């Protein structure tokens, strides 16, 4: 047995034919270690969901292989279906069954019972227990996610696949949710989760950027941040709208993106950030900006993501 829980090798999947063909997954390879919390980060339409379908044996790849806990997703799909838990992107439980009934249903499907797996779902189920008679359709968004996670866990799987589990959920519930994933991972479950939220990506042990069906970088968030090639200045002024345009025209600017109230300016390599900050202040004052604030900063995962999007996607570069 290898140390890997999930191994994908050159996975490819195309939809449609001819001019309208879309290469949803394009030669993807990566490994997820046993007991690891692995994140797939990418924009909508990057191919994350298709990747999940391939890994969970719901779809047969055009080429390449995927192995989950030593089982091939095509040949050994029966074994795989016993040991994985999958939580699709959309809330997909029975709205007209109660919390309890949904759990019982999924436990029965996997030949288990709620009582048998109560211990493993308890950390999450305790949030839901007060509402166990309530219909799933009447739960709040956060509660629905917790129920879906419970249902994916109710047969004590070895690997958990979570497709954008926190999309459409409030920030508090999202935080809670990731804390639960941490607890599960401590119990030894390998978890593969996708998310479009960068602040969640740092909670993963390792992440992979997915873009246009390809995995472009795969490492720990820390290493990815460390490799960021540019010095960054966070800039704010009173006139946010023209600021972004002016920053992009600044000599020495590589690119610039909005992050809330601040604009992140990525500088071409060469020359210290402190030196550049002075030059930038003079430049912006010259352009008529007021209340200028400039701070050098460390790269965040989001910076890495934005830069990557602009490099390969093109689409995000002009924002």
């Amino acid at each position: 047995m290898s140390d890997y829980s999930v191994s994908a090798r050159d996975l490819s999947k195309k939809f449609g034919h001819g001019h309208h063909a879309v290469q949803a997954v394009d030669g993807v390879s990566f490994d997820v270690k046993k007991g690891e919390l692995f994140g797939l980060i990418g924009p909508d339409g990057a191919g994350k969901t298709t990747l999940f379908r391939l890994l969970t044996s719901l779809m047969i790849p055009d080429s390449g292989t995927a192995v989950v806990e030593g089982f091939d997703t095509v040949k050994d799909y029966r074994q795989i279906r016993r040991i994985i838990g999958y939580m699709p992107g959309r809330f997909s439980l029975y709205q007209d069954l109660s919390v309890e009934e949904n759990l019982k249903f999924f436990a029965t499907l996997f030949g288990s019972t709620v009582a048998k797996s109560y211990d493993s779902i308890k950390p999450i189920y305790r949030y839901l227990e007060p509402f166990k008679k309530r219909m799933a359709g009447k739960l709040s968004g956060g509660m629905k996610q917790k129920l879906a996670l419970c249902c994916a866990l109710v047969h004590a799987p070895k690997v958990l696949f979570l497709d954008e589990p926190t999309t459409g959920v409030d920030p508090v519930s999202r935080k809670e949710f990731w804390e639960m994933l941490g607890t599960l991972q401590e119990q030894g479950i390998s978890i593969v989760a996708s998310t479009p939220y960068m602040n969640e990506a740092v909670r993963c042990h390792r992440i992979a950027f997915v873009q246009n069906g390809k995995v472009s970088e795969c490492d720990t968030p820390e290493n990815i941040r460390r490799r960021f090639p540019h010095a960054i200045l966070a800039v704010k002024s009173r006139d946010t709208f023209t600021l972004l345009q002016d920053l992009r025209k600044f000599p020495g600017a590589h690119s610039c993106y909005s992050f809330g109230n601040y604009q992140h300016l990525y500088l071409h390599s060469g020359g210290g950030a402190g030196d550049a900050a002075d030059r930038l202040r003079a430049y912006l004052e010259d352009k008529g900006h007021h209340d200028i604030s400039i701070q050098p900063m460390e790269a965040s995962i989001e910076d890495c993501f934005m830069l990557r999007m602009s490099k390969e996607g093109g689409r995000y570069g002009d924002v």
Partner: protein
Amino acid sequence: MGRKVLKYLLEKEFKQNLRNPIMLPLIIVLPLIQLVVLPFAATYEIRNVEMVIVDNDHSAFSRDLEQKIASSGYFRTRYHAPTYQEALSYIEKGDAAVVLEIPQHFENDLGDGRSAQVFLSVDAVDGTQASIVEAYLNGVIQDYAARTLREEALQSQVEVRNRKLPSRIQATAQMRFNPFLDYQTYMVPGILAMLLTLVGGILAALNISGERELGTLEQINVSPVRKSDYLLGKLIPFWIMGLLITLIGLGIAWLLYGLTPRGSLPTLLLFATIYNIGFTGFGLFLSSVSKSQQQAMFVAFFFLLIFFLMGGLFTPVSSMPHWAQYIVYLNPTWYLIDAMRLIILKGSGFAQLLDQFYAILSFAVFFNFLALITFRKTAK
């Protein structure tokens, strides 16, 4: 493990169906409304057809005939027109449906024992009505002619021997099994067949494509549950629902029309069940190959419309063109409507219904086979 899974799958389906606020009313109200409304709406009885008369003879006989027709209750003499052309304009305007032209010398011809002709012109936009009107009116006229001749004969006994009476062979129709051509009675078995088709075809198609749309199907696909368990869990509730609807429908038919099956109830239920199994398979097949509930719905609707219209529910198959009658052989609904009518109205036993039985059975096997090979837990 298999049986336990199936048991819970069934439990879940029943819970969901019972919680669906429209499901119970559907099972009871659907048959009730169809059985109350449709037999009356689909009636072939003709009453108060507007008629224009062009009387070129102006004789006692012609007036007599007019009166006779009017007193039948089927026709109402709305207008008199001097010429056929003018009479036709009433039809063109839609004010009348029939023109009856009585020729000159009508009385003379009839009096002399020659055959007399009247000219009949029927608005055939509604073909069914036209042919029935024509048949009714012919009947009235024949009857009139026969009576007139007999009266004449009685008046002058001597002359009769010398006179050549137009010899005629009269065919008398005797309606068996539905003696009064009661359309309510005739429609009931067909409507029961239609209800079964709806339960199987539409409800089953909607149910599974609905799970696909909701995303729950994906959750099930990723579980180790066997395809057969899952499908049985889906289909059995519809089989039970179909049986319930049939029984409720028969109950309503008895309450409303005093109609009880002449044949055996078990035979009837056997046919209903096998047909229902076939159509849930049909619905299942449609939902397996459709991407959305809407798509499944439209395709199901398309086929059901053909099955109903070509199933002899409203129009007799024998009056369809030849090529269409061959298509009818491929219509499972036709076999069931036929069998239901034979069992309920005629009291046919199983031995007389073997053809229909094998046909329905083959369709059931065929549709379920299609469903089984198209329903996949893994996408290509």
